[in-house]
């Protein structure tokens, strides 16, 4: 049995999901020979540290650790530096301008040779190549499946299953909020503002929806894909971004009459994010909050994956598979 000591930094929607998933899958993980022990959880109020593993139930019951759960006032950086661990799960909020606080957390972990698994796009958008190099120099692994496609296995599909193929391009729908809004506008004939309001009421869109509807989230994902899958050296500003705020009900109706849907499509290595016409029969013509991505390869043709782009348990499941991949397939893809 391989014991993996994990320090978790960030304990919001995804953090709670991760604790829950580890709790639920304990037996399955043991069958794989893995004993995941979450030795610390830190949010921005403090840390709970248990050498023999934090009981997930303790943390799952509270919104923040300040509610009588924290037993230390260690900050994320200290927890990563001082607590003995093999891997850091970094799930703090995304900031694509400076990447903090996640960037500091990841640098600290990798410098110490600790593996990092994350759903936080910010640090990867700001400093992907630097973090990858840091990981390499210190013999650590950096995994980030959850940053790009949510539950869609995109990075692992490319790195592992499609190994040997040249990846010619990836395009798809990478934002469930935009997809939901466009789907409702088309199906119900709602104006943009009304569909957005509905999405906000359902908790699909944030109170400040700009990050999603202006295409920023999708562009951040394209930046990560460009640097990781295509080995480019791309900054966020290199992506040409148009969001969905100018899409009208009439334009959707015109498209529909001719057999098309309008979707917000991100494309690499084209480095574009913009609304595009998607033929109804295309595998990318998925509705609701689904994401979908087509990977164009030289040997295997075009492969399309689809799945939920966000959600607590869904995102956590991507984090968990990254962890399992690190410890069960070390030899296969140790290139990273």
């Amino acid at each position, binding site marked *: 049995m391989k014991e993996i000591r994990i320090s978790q930094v960030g304990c919001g929607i995804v953090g709670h999901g991760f604790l829950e998933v580890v709790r639920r899958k304990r037996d399955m993980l043991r069958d794989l020979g893995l004993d995941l022990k979450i030795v610390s959880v830190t949010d921005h109020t403090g840390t709970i540290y248990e050498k023999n593993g934090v009981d997930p139930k303790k943390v799952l019951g509270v919104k923040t650790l300040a509610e009588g759960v924290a037993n230390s006032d260690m900050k994320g950086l200290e927890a990563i530096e001082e607590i003995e661990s093999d891997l850091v799960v970094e799930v703090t909020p995304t900031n694509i301008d400076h990447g903090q606080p996640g960037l500091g957390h990841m640098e600290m972990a990798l410098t110490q040779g600790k593996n990092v698994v994350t759903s936080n796009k910010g640090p990867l958008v700001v400093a992907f190549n630097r973090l990858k190099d840091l990981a390499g120099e210190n013999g650590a692994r950096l995994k980030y499946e959850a940053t790009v496609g949510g539950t869609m296995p995109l990075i692992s599909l490319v790195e592992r299953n499609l190994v040997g193929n040249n990846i010619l391009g990836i395009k798809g729908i990478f934002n469930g909020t935009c997809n939901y809004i466009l789907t409702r506008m088309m199906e119900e004939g709602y104006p943009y503002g009304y569909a957005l309001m509905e999405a906000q009421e359902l908790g699909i869109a944030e109170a400040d929806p700009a990050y999603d509807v202006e295409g920023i989230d999708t562009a951040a994902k394209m930046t990560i894909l460009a640097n990781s899958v295509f080995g480019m050296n791309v900054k966020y500003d290199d992506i040409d971004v148009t969001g969905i705020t100018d899409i009208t009900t009439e334009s959707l109706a015109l498209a529909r*009459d001719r057999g098309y849907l309008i979707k917000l499509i991100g494309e690499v290595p084209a480095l574009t994010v*913009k609304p595009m*016409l998607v033929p109804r029969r295309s595998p990318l013509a998925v509705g609701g909050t689904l994401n979908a991505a087509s990977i164009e390869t030289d040997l295997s043709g075009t492969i399309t994956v689809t799945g939920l782009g966000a959600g607590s348990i869904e995102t956590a499941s991507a984090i968990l598979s990254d962890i399992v991949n690190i410890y069960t397939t070390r030899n296969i893809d140790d290139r990273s």
Partner: protein
Amino acid sequence: MRLSMDLELQDVPGQLILALEPFRLYKGNIISVVHHRDRKTPRGTIPVQLVFEISGSRIEQVKNHLKKNNISVVRIGEDRFVEEVSVLLVGHVVDSDLGDTINQIDSTGFAEVVDLCLKMPGIEDPSSAYIKIRATGKEEMSKALAILREVGVQKDLLVIEPIEAEML
């Protein structure tokens, strides 16, 4: 160059092979062959449509060879447009001179707007236009779309392109 050709074949075995022989001989690249067995002409011949690419200087040789093989050529012509895309324009499509927008594509000589549909919800509101563009090849289509994108920037129109062009 890319050409299309209508032939009429006798309804006896081996005719199609005779018809295709010169293309092989003169290094033509056959793109499609449609054999209309079900549309026999009153003369009892069978119409066949070919689309092929061949160097312009060889066309006469192909025609002569077909004649020698007793195959009658009904029509031969340039197959101008091979690519087609649908594009949506959203914004003040009409006020920003739709005629000019279309003309910028048509005046290229290699691309044309072949279909147009407008929706105008109200004077103040942005309108939407669906246009279908045909072009003589992939590269030409990319150029036409680049022109349209540029026009979109100038006229503050949202240009919604398809994820892929369609072959005609």
